């Protein structure tokens, strides 16, 4: 197992190097002279030239690349034109809001998705099963930005139960609608996943044994079938967290939630490419880390998996 963990960590290093190559190549494609953006709109050509040199844009590409990797290793993700400040602190400042939304979103996924999945699996083919499965199909198909707008319209404007977007210092009433919108798609996904996994497990021998012992249905499912189904769910949750944390771009934009996703979208329109690419890099880092953590955790959760 030690060997496996080492292998995964090595994999992480290789992938992150690849990520750095790709992001660097893209930053290189940016049209226009970054020095000019950096210098500000009214800077003189002489000032632009000095900054061009200061940024090292007149050196060979490979030197610029190693310089880039070196800087990233020292947690220097670049310099934001818009904020006239380093990129990483700008991302970290917004990150708690994104993390909060992501965790609340996962909460809704689980709180809505698991009960639906269990109940559907308990009576496959029943009316409940069919209704919930159609419901999950519809939820998965609804564009998240549209769902968010409809929620804002109905529960913010028509029936003013919740504030109309914004962070509000992270108060629960501000968090509720964006987290719900975010969680609904996932809830549908998890309920389908759980239903499928349970339907796969329930005919197995050890479950039949539990039935034969005369245990109640609730106990059979919750105590005997669920632990095994949960490993699949937890794995998937770990994966999703990476995506969530990497910026729930659409939801943050619709609800004016001040996370890294909204910041990055704003940056796109400000042509603040370093901030965008810094966020992309940050997101990639999170996703890769989440992958490795889940892989390693998996070896503990499910000892049957041998490596």
């Amino acid at each position: 197992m030690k060997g496996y963990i080492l292998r995964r960590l090595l994999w992480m290093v290789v992938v992150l190097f690849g990520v750095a190559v790709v992001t660097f190549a893209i930053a290189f494609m940016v049209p226009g002279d970054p020095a000019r953006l950096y210098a500000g709109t009214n800077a003189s050509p002489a000032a632009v030239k000095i900054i061009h040199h200061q940024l090292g844009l007149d050196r060979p590409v490979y030197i610029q690349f190693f310089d880039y990797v070196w800087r990233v290793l020292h947690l220097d993700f670049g310099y934001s034109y818009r904020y006239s400040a380093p990129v990483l602190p700008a991302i970290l400042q917004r990150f708690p809001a994104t993390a909060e939304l992501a965790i609340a979103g996962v909460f809704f996924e689980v709180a809505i998705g698991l009960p639906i999945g269990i109940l559907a699996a308990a009576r496959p083919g029943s009316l409940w099963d069919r209704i919930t499965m159609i419901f999950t199909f519809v939820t998965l198909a609804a564009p998240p930005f549209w769902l968010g707008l409809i929620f804002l319209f109905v529960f913010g404007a028509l029936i003013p139960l919740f504030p109309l977007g914004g962070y509000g210092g992270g108060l629960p009433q501000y968090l509720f609608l964006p987290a719900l919108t975010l969680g609904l798609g996932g809830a549908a996904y998890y309920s389908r996943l759980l239903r499928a996994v349970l339907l796969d497990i329930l005919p197995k021998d050890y479950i039949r044994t539990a039935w034969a012992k005369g245990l109640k249905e609730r106990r059979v499912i919750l105590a005997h079938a669920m632990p095994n189904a949960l490993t699949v769910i937890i794995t998937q949750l770990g994966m999703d967290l990476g995506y969530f944390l990497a910026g729930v771009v659409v939801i943050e934009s619709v609800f004016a939630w001040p996370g890294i996703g909204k910041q990055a979208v704003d940056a796109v329109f400000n042509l603040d490419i370093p901030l965008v690419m810094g966020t992309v890099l940050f997101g990639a880092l999170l996703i890769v880390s989440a992958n490795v953590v889940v892989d390693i955790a998996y070896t503990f959760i499910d000892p049957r998996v041998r490596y």
Partner: protein
Amino acid sequence: MNHHRVRLMGVTVTSLLVLAACGTTTATTTQPVSGGTLNVAFKDDPKTLDPAVAYDTTSWAVERSIYNGLLDYKGFTTQLAPDIAEAMPSITNGGKTYTFKVRKGVKFSNGREVTADDFKYSWERMLDPKTQGPMTGGSFWGGITGAQDFFNAKVDHISGIKVIDANTLEVDLDAPNQSFLNIVAMPFGFVIPKEAVAAAGADFSHKPVGTGPFTLDKWTAGQLLVLKKNPNYFGKAAYLNEVDFQIGVAAEVGFLRLQNGQADLVQPDINMPSAQYIQLNSNPTFKGRIVRNPNVDIWYLGMNVNMAPFDNKLVREAFNNVVNKTNQLKVLNGRGVINNGIQAPPMPGYVANYNPLGLDKNGQNLDKAKALLTQAGYGASHPFPAQDLVYAKANADSDNLAASIQQDFQAVGITINLKGLSFPAFLDITGKPNSTALSYNGWIQDFPDPSDFIDPILTCSAANVTANGGDVAFYCNKQLDQLADQARGDTNATERLKLYQQIQDIVAKQDFPWVPMYSTLQTSISGTRVHDYALHPVWPLVLTNIWLTGGK
């Protein structure tokens, strides 16, 4: 095109002004009460609160409450008045030397008294290339004696800014400039204390110290910016105890919040989008709370005179006959007037119903356009090449305005492709020579003087600046430049306006670098507990008059 917008209410009485009089302030019957927190919804953070760097209305809206300069505008007018200066300066040496007396007892929020040295320091810092502010290298302040040497790092100080004694500041200009006092009143002229800049290091923007009615209490980027009343303010104290800027709130959400009482104002420097205007204007509770003011802006299509096919004057003239300006204004709910010239109401020099080409009521003459295109050599055998129209996307209205132009040109057989860009990208691409042929631009005054509608956007120097000159048509006419130079220093107001008429005729009747379209009416609204909110003709937001029902 400019990213700052300041308004003027003015000297020339126009139909717009009469309209504006209907709802400039919210009528109140009770006496103002102190106290309470005002909530203002903002879309973006201020770019910076460093007055040497900020050149956008969002930053200015906040800066105005933190800092002061030597001069300001009297109340809600465009008349200049002393602020930190004791009185208006004495002007000597044929209009080239200005002597300011600094008022005694004005204190920074750190407790220290303001002296003439502080102004010399603040202005030199603002003009220092190391500060990387937009005024570096010339622009409005470049006419101060010795400024050019300072820009080129030949000297450490600007010889034309002299501290005579602790309370006397003298400024020498190379040539007389009738708008210099307006320039002094711009936010770039705000005074800041040297020791606070040193203490803040590179981050004065987040640790600002000024003399204004409010001080910055807290600023969490993307979330909240809090101003607290400054107890040591030298002027009349504000009624409000605190102002909370809720950041990251799109206008659509902001106006909904305002109706639910979660916000009291929505970013006043951004005009109300059509949708919100329609909705609030038909809401009995809020209809009367909308305030209106001329925006002192001109919206036009810029045609790059160096690029085909617009290097042909016939083509440019043809384009001047195509745009349906009534449709443009309909997208904006009729909030504005058709403008076929270059000066905006109510700027001195604006001529109402100016129509040098004899266009119809929509600003069109399609037959003339077709004839001119034929004359220019375009027709069935040689069709007019498709053009990209570059425009800045502010909100849904931007796309709609551009789409309307597209439709107009279809009627004369010209294909227009729409290229909507973010504002910085728009500035970037329209400011570069030979990169944008056709663009949708707006120019909004920096200060209430007609020179501001010529010098930065229609002169040869504005076309020659390699980095983002304001002359998007890259139009350069030596005769016009000469007239502009003459007008800038002319002390005879009537003669001066005549020169500006001449310039307007050259542009709109002879050379056609633009298709002038319309000037807009600024609209804004306040929540139900807000009293005495008014639009300032120059400043994006003035907080000192505002008070809340019951002081809470």
